[in-house]
């Protein structure tokens, strides 16, 4: 495993690389943090380390969640993450030469500029080297004494290479600022006001640690375009840039979702109490009313008519948004509901396990049923068409496979497609899928090497079963049921046999499915049938045993 040691590009953190999970690479979905929801994904995304392409991270699926950008390698199980809170700005560069030879063309890219405010703290957490912290430090040329930025290796003035022995002397002697409103230039020692980025005497750039807090505030203010432009200049540095190359399109949707996620600052909300989650709705209302106020101050003439039309439109918008308010509230509460369901089920499990030690080990059947309902309500971030676009079917198949992994044991390893449709949609809670979508995703299982298969019985019944659930295993289990039935009735030499109804209750499957299982076993020659007016009963195949 040489790829194991491949270092992720700068700023990215490897959060998972597990060959241990049963899922194949194609079947992996990113692991989520508490309260995190997936927003959109795009395939064929390559990572850049600064300006250069990373061969090891060239092709993968890129997700944006409410908290992070996640990148999952196509070739191995690498999952890299970049938290949104580090992103300062998002820029889209639309590629060129779509019809040129491959060597000349350039895919559209998203360039993320990171705020270096977080670098020192997050790099400590992530264990990556804080190689970018010294990005704005200057070095002094040993030949011409000119000061150069640390990230260039050749003196801009005389072209002489940097002498490694004299590397970055400037930072070593960096004096502390004199007061909160003043700072000393590290180059010429001139004392400047703390708000400036360049020394007023020698024009050299100030170290980033002090300027970055200013950047933060200017970014939050976001009205002084000049100020933010100058901030851009300061940070316009390879070291603080993360590039994503979109080789299979979808860049605009991705950028839109990413910007939305960054501006909504979902990650801050999870740190607050859950009660504050619904803060989005009042704000949208507020903006609606604000725009209404603006339009009411109109005059006459054509502009008045236009304004009036606008006004009507806005009133319509408002009515619509009011109408869907409840639905939106439900959607935003979905993750809370899921959380609550999980906590209740955990509590119930704890209660029953403490009970089972004592005499009260028999559980209330209602309690069991209740818990199974809670377990069913378990998909916190359902895949939607809007999120995944073209890859919808594949992503849905992955989600389905994950879900089946949890529930299929309760159904004896095999479940009718119709039943699956019901419990899967119940688990999604919101954003229900159509039967066609389900059937399409289920059909993907084999191609995507997911551990489940769809199967069509001769009767036309469609079922989904785990791929290791073979006919042999089915036949053996059914035969066991039939033999145990024979033992139960000792009065008759041949026993009474089992109907598909009996098998359904013993296996906990539907009658239709039970019949199919019996037919499989019959095909194996392990059982035989007695077809009478009372219906079909199945017996152990005694024909083969008699001489």
């Amino acid at each position, binding site marked *: 495993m040489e790829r194991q040691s491949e270092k992720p590009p700068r700023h990215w953190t490897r959060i998972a690389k597990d060959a241990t999970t049963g899922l194949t690479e194609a079947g992996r979905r990113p692991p989520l943090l508490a309260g995190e929801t997936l927003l959109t994904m795009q395939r064929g995304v390559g990572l850049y380390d600064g300006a250069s392409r990373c061969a090891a991270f060239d092709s993968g699926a890129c997700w944006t969640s409410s908290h992070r950008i996640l990148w999952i390698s196509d070739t191995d199980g690498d999952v890299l993450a970049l938290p949104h809170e580090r992103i300062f700005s998002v820029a889209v560069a639309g590629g060129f030469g779509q019809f040129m030879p491959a060597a000349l063309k350039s895919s559209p890219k998203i360039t993320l500029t990171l705020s270096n405010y977080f670098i020192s703290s997050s790099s400590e957490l992530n264990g990556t080297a804080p190689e970018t912290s010294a990005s704005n430090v200057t070095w002094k040329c040993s030949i011409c004494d000119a000061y150069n930025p640390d990230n260039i290796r050749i003196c801009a003035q005389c072209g002489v290479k940097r002498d490694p022995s004299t590397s970055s002397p400037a930072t070593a002697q960096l004096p502390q600022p004199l007061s909160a409103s003043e700072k000393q230039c590290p180059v010429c020692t001139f004392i400047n006001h703390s708000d400036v980025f360049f020394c007023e005497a020698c024009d050299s750039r100030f170290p980033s640690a002090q300027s970055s807090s200013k950047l933060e505030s200017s970014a939050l203010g976001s009205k002084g375009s000049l100020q933010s432009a100058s901030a851009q200049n300061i940070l316009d540095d390879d070291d603080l840039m993360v590039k994503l190359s979109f080789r299979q399109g979808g860049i605009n949707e991705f950028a839109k979702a990413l910007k939305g996620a960054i501006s909504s600052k979902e990650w801050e909300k999870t740190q607050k109490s859950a009660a504050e989650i619904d803060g989005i709705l009042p704000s949208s209302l507020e903006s609606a009313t604000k725009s209404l106020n603006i339009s009411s101050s109109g005059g006459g003439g054509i502009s008045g008519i236009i304004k009036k039309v606008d006004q009507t439109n806005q009133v319509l918008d408002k009515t619509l948004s009011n109408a869907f308010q409840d639905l939106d509230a439900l959607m935003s509460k979905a993750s809370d509901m899921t959380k609550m369901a999980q906590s209740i089920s955990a509590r119930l499990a704890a209660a029953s396990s403490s009970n089972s030690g004592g005499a009260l080990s028999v559980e209330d059947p209602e309690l069991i049923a209740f818990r199974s309902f809670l377990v069913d309500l378990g998909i916190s971030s359902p895949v939607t068409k809007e999120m995944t676009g073209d890859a919808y079917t594949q992503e849905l198949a992955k989600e389905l496979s994950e879900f089946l992994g949890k529930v299929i044991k309760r159904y004896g390893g095999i479940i009718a497609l119709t039943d699956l449709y019901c419990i899967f949609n119940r688990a999604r809670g919101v954003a229900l899928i159509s039967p066609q979508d389900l059937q399409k995703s289920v059909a993907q299982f084999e191609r995507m090497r997911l551990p489940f298969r769809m199967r069509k019985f001769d009767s036309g019944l469609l079922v989904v079963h785990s791929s290791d659930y073979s006919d042999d295993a089915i036949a053996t289990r059914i035969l066991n049921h039939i033999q145990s039935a024979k033992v139960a009735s000792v009065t008759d030499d*041949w026993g009474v046999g089992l109907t598909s109804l009996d098998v359904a209750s013993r296996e906990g499957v539907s009658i239709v499915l039970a019949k199919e299982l019996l037919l499989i076993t019959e095909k194996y020659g392990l059982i035989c049938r007695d077809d009478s007016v009372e219906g079909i009963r199945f*017996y152990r195949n005694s024909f083969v045993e008699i001489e």
Partner: protein
Amino acid sequence: MSFTFPAIYNFPPFFTQQPTADTWSRQRALWVQLVLSYCASHRLFLVDLNELSVSPLFTNASISRSLNRKAIDAVFEDIVAAGNGEWEDKKSRSRCFVWWKRPDEWAALIYAWASDNGQKICTVYEIVEGDVTEGLEFHGLHIDAVKRVLEVLVRQGRGQLFYGSSDTDMGIKFA
């Protein structure tokens, strides 16, 4: 003469044609066995399938099951194919000789009896109904069946048939 049915006779699936090919062929083999031993026990030589299908052989009253006609036909196809039966009426296939002893076995028995007792010429009637064969195995053999047996002897060169005015007048000259 009481016939004891084998244990499988009380197995309900025995009376249902099994859809699985292997099981069904095994089931047919068991039926062939049963039919032959039943006919031997009841000394049935020529059976009518319509009659036999309602007989205890194919209808088990105690478990109220009976084998359907289609399955019975299939069983008899097997019997004929194995040389243990012969259609009397090849077209309609409703009457069948059941050779629980094959024709050549019968022929050998009759020939042995004839040579033991110095019989040179005798009629068919004498062989199957006559006092001299009383108690012998082929006594009571169906008249049409015995004709086929005697034809076997002719083919073996051990006898010569001569015909009278009726079937019972038909005779054989042993060589």
